[in-house]
């Protein structure tokens, strides 16, 4: 992969918006990788949590949006609670989800969820799942 | 050539500048040449120069001969090979170039086995010349104040020839035990007469370390152990200095092949440090200098 890095992307509105929603300053991250190290689901992610931040630092928000990372984050906050720079990747991913929802895209189709699931699973899981996966 | 030499000596002694001419003369029975010290112009007829003149007279310019020094400024009759020793002595501050008048003799070789020369009707055939003469690149003296004799156009062979070199190869081909055995054989014969040391103009130390006994550096007994040490030390002290004049081996009454070990070390010096002794009186012998970049150390683990 080859990327052009430029001021326009780094200082783009999309990034600025993301930082506003998430309340996190991605440039505070110094890429120690603790988040990736502690994340229970990083093994499943297209782009590891720390690398998500990196891509945002260099203005590559589209690549981040295309990754499955935000949909895998369970919000356990291991990353946040251990970050030496107090950057919450979970918040950034949450903001990414928000941004996605605001553009009208859902991650799952509610209608496809089997009834048995809805019946047997604790409510909170269903509620939480809806909150995380659909707008 | 002899006439030229005598003329030059006469001139030098006559000028008053020179106190003594160190040269060669016949012994009484004219069977051998021997060092002579000519101080008077009228004695210069005693000077000879021929194939019998094997001695390296530079030894008389060392500090061991205060009585020679007392005779005034010396002029020395020197073949190219002897001049190499003078060059090292100058490099090591034993005298200044100006302190000695070098009468350089062009030379077509010398012979150690006098009776062989005689058997050849006084003619010097290559078979009876020492190795140094076969490989000599200073038959025309390289440093001198005056050159006596016709310039020779002898060029030494590219690859040095002679028994010494064969012997080196032969020894190198042995295993360690073989090499040790070889030298043990020879060194054990040593009688510690120190003729090798005394005849060498580069062994000019006022007091040789063998003569020191606090501490006793080298066992003074002529048993194998003491002999081994002595010969190793002698070779080491001449490393990078020896000019291969061959006097030590010639002087050795028990025929220890000292030339082999000396030449081996000279080859090492040339290979490792690109140093050949006796050519440049300005260049310090290699063992007391170093080259940070180029000195190899692959053997130091």
């Amino acid at each position, binding site marked *: 992969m080859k990327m052009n890095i430029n001021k326009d992307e780094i200082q783009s509105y999309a990034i600025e918006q993301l930082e506003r929603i998430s309340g996190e300053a991605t440039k505070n991250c110094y890429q120690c990788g603790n988040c990736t190290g502690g994340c*229970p689901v990083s093994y499943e992610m297209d782009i590891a949590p720390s690398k998500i931040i990196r891509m945002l630092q260099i203005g590559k928000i589209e690549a981040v949006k295309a990754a499955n990372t935000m949909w895998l984050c369970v919000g356990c906050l*291991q990353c946040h609670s251990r970050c030496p720079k107090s950057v919450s990747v979970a918040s950034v991913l949450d903001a990414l989800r928000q941004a996605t929802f605001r553009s009208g895209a859902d991650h799952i189709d509610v209608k496809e969820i089997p009834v048995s699931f809805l019946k047997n699973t604790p409510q909170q899981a269903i*509620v939480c799942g809806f909150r995380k996966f659909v707008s | 050539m002899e006439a030229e030499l005598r003329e030059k000596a006469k001139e030098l002694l006559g000028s008053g500048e020179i106190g003594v001419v160190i040269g060669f003369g016949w012994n009484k029975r004219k069977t051998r040449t021997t060092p002579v010290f000519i101080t008077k112009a009228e004695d210069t007829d005693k000077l000879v120069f021929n194939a019998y003149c094997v001695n390296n007279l530079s030894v008389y310019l060392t500090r061991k001969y205060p009585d020679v020094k007392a005779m005034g400024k010396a002029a020395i009759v020197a073949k190219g090979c002897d001049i190499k020793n003078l060059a090292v002595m100058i490099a090591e501050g034993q005298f200044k170039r100006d302190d000695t008048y070098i009468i350089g003799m062009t030379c077509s070789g010398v012979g150690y086995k006098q009776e062989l020369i005689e058997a050849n009707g006084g003619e010097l055939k290559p078979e009876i010349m020492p190795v140094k003469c076969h490989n000599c690149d200073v038959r025309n003296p390289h440093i001198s104040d005056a050159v006596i004799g016709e310039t020779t156009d002898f060029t030494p062979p590219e690859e040095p020839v002679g028994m010494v070199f064969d012997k080196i190869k032969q020894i190198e081909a042995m295993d360690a035990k073989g090499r040790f055995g070889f030298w043990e054989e020879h060194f054990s014969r040593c009688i510690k007469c120190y003729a090798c040391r005394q005849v060498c103009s580069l062994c000019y130390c006022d007091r040789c370390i063998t003569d020191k006994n606090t501490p006793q550096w080298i066992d003074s007994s002529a048993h194998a152990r003491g002999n081994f040490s002595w010969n190793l030390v002698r070779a080491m002290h001449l490393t990078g200095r020896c000019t291969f004049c061959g006097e030590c081996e010639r002087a050795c009454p028990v025929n220890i092949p000292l030339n082999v070990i000396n030449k081996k070390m000279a080859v090492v010096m040339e290979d490792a440090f690109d140093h050949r002794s006796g050519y440049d009186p300005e260049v310090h012998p290699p063992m007391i200098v170093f080259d940070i970049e180029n000195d190899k150390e692959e053997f130091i683990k």
Partner: protein
Amino acid sequence: MKIPYYPGCTLNTTAKGFDLSARESAQTLGFEMEELEQWNCCGACFPLSPGNVMALAAPAKVLTNARKEGESVTTLCSVCYNVLKRTNVALNEDKARLAAVNDFIEEDYDGSLKVVHMLEVLRDTIGFDKVKEAVMRPLGKLKVGAYYGCMLLRPFKDVGIDRHEGPTIIEDLLTAMGCEAIDFPDKIECCGAHLTMGREDVVEKLSGNVIASAVNRGAEVIVTSCPLCQYNLEKSQESIMETNAGHKEVPIIYFTQLLGLSLGQTDEMAGLDGNKFDIRPLLKERGV
């Protein structure tokens, strides 16, 4: 003593045993958990991005109603606790956000409610010593792993029920109950939570890790304070047992259930029937 109590959605449905055992235990320990008159779903997840104000509305409503009924509210479910407490902190930290939320829910909440967890009540109000005294049925040599999950602990600054990397509050309670508390490395790791919707594979792996970690240290029983954790652990244990015949089943029960048992309640009172893996054979084995 009455304590205002917020059960949340799950405790009235799949986690009835949690609710029941807690109420009964409270009785035994001399206080009453009084369910709020008015409550709604907390939303089950706290909005991580502060820009998402909407998601605060539901928990704010809970807080508002609770405040009307008292000065504090107690929860059992870790998730409810986390959401309510964090919402409360968030509203208190940012008065503008509080105003916005109030505007939206048309209430006038001032942020003065105290959100506590049942564990905190037991530790701080009742005291574990008192629990110890009240134990009627010591659980003998039962080796119990305390599983905290995420919501009880993180983020520490906002939630802070105990030390966030090495909490011991449940272990302390277990000790008071006379169990042998088993500490295990994965006790604060995530169970997979809502990924059970669509990514059971991830949940199975994460919960499986937790169980393996606990079993590895010798736990025979795992206690939780979160219905989703309980569900995930049970569910993944089922699949573990499908592939690994040698796996000895580990009952996953709520800490209040075990508490209830130690306080001498009946199995019904402790709501043991709701659990997939029954603890009773184990207790029997131990002669409890």
